[in-house]
């Protein structure tokens, strides 16, 4: 399968926050139509990786390539135009905007009104609960609904690659399950996904491939389910020797 060209390719990425060397040479690949997850304990650099890809953080060295285009130097809004959308950590929906407005903002870059209307219906079919709350302010939604809105909003840009930063954060177990089923569904309908999770088990269950990060580096990688039983993973999380 490695014969084909990856959708996203990251090569030797180094990022500094002030004096902190946050990413120490990250390299990874995401192939089309796959779910790839990035797992590891807090502070390992997962979020920084996604933030760098999305253009919110600048890398010092290293390449980020979407298909044939180098995108490492583009501003964040251009990266969205290139086809990468992100569901930020902690949802970050706009609390002062209605559900509908949040979704419209998600497709800010698009002009194809007809298709937008169809996509909106598609989003509502995935998240029927959002449909009931179309005119409600984002801030009044429950945590789970906000997460759904954040995912829906990102999907509205019709991304080639959807990145998600801890979609299960702060959600009750039942909702976590629901969210992961939805992620899988979105993927099956043709969106490539790069996922960050603390909830490693849930992430690995649905992932085609996964990278394990520890203190700014990629430690291990492998096919999703096989990592579930990997000792290194357990160690990275629970600090067991």
């Amino acid at each position: 399968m490695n014969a084909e060209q990856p959708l996203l390719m990251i090569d030797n990425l180094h990022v500094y926050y002030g004096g902190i060397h946050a990413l120490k040479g990250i390299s990874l690949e995401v192939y089309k139509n796959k779910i790839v997850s990035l797992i590891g304990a807090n502070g390992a650099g997962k979020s920084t990786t996604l933030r760098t890809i999305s253009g919110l953080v600048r890398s010092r060295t290293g390449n980020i390539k979407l298909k044939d285009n180098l995108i490492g130097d583009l501003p964040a809004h251009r990266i969205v135009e290139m086809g990468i959308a992100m569901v930020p950590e902690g949802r970050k929906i706009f609390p002062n905007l209605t559900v509908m407005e949040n979704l419209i903002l998600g497709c800010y870059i698009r002009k194809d009104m007809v298709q937008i209307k169809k996509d909106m219906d598609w989003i509502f079919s995935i998240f029927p609960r959002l449909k009931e709350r179309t005119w409600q302010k984002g801030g009044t939604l429950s945590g789970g609904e906000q997460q759904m809105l954040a995912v829906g909003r990102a999907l509205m840009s019709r991304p080639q690659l959807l990145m998600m930063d801890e979609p299960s954060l702060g959600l009750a177990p039942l909702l976590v399950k629901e969210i992961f089923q939805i992620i899988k569904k979105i993927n099956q309908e043709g969106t490539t996904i790069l996922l960050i999770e603390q909830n490693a088990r849930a992430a690995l269950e649905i992932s085609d491939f996964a990278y394990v990060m520890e203190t700014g580096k990629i430690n291990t990688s492998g096919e999703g389910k096989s990592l579930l039983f990997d000792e290194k993973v357990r160690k990275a999380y629970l600090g067991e020797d």
Partner: protein
Amino acid sequence: MNKNADAILSLDGLTMVFGGLIAVNDFNFQLQSGDLAGLIGPNGAGKTTIFNMITGQYIPTKGKVVFVSQELNHLPPHAITSLGIARTFQNIRLFGNLSVLDNVLVSFHKELKKTFFSAMWETPGYIQQEKGMREEGRQLLEAVGLLEMEKEEAKNLPYGQQRRLEIARALATHPRLLLLDEPAAGMNPHETMDLMSFIQRIRKEFQLTILLIEHDMKVVMGICERVAVMDFGIKIAEGTPNEIRNNPKVVEAYLGVEG
């Protein structure tokens, strides 16, 4: 009714609601004098919110914080510090343009008798006081191994030393209870080992009660005698590190449920 009369800190039914979202829900916890306890849990579980309620940055929606039999709920942060609670921050908040020594000296301000008027005229009493204060500040820096850096601006210190300075600054308020918010975040394994022995050392030297939030389980398992685990703003377990490690609820919170 106080279940534990000699507790130094007692959190009774703490609840914090942010615009509809419950960040912390009915949290109960007690610390005995001299404890070194940990507060752990996945990201967003509400740990820092608990610190913010203890130190007065947030006013709890429900429940109360009691420190040595005094209720803290409506005291401003500076008054709470004066009672003997100090803290560090998750995202280091030093006074970047001040020297290392000055960062520590700021914490002495609340205890000074001679303030602005005698300072303006440089009265002998004031000079004496300033001298004594500097001496104590430098002793403290020596204790944390930062004395050589005393004149450096805080923002120029390497990361690990910044964490150390933040702890030193907190110690300078002469606390009985020290709250550490992710002291090991961003440290490499070697620095983390140093930090662990450092925390144990200052605990003895300054006779502290310590509560720490940490993600690095090595730290928590290595030095804490008691651990409380949070998930979704609720305390899901409490016990010794060993009990915690084998608690299925905790493993589930960390590694996640079956997807």
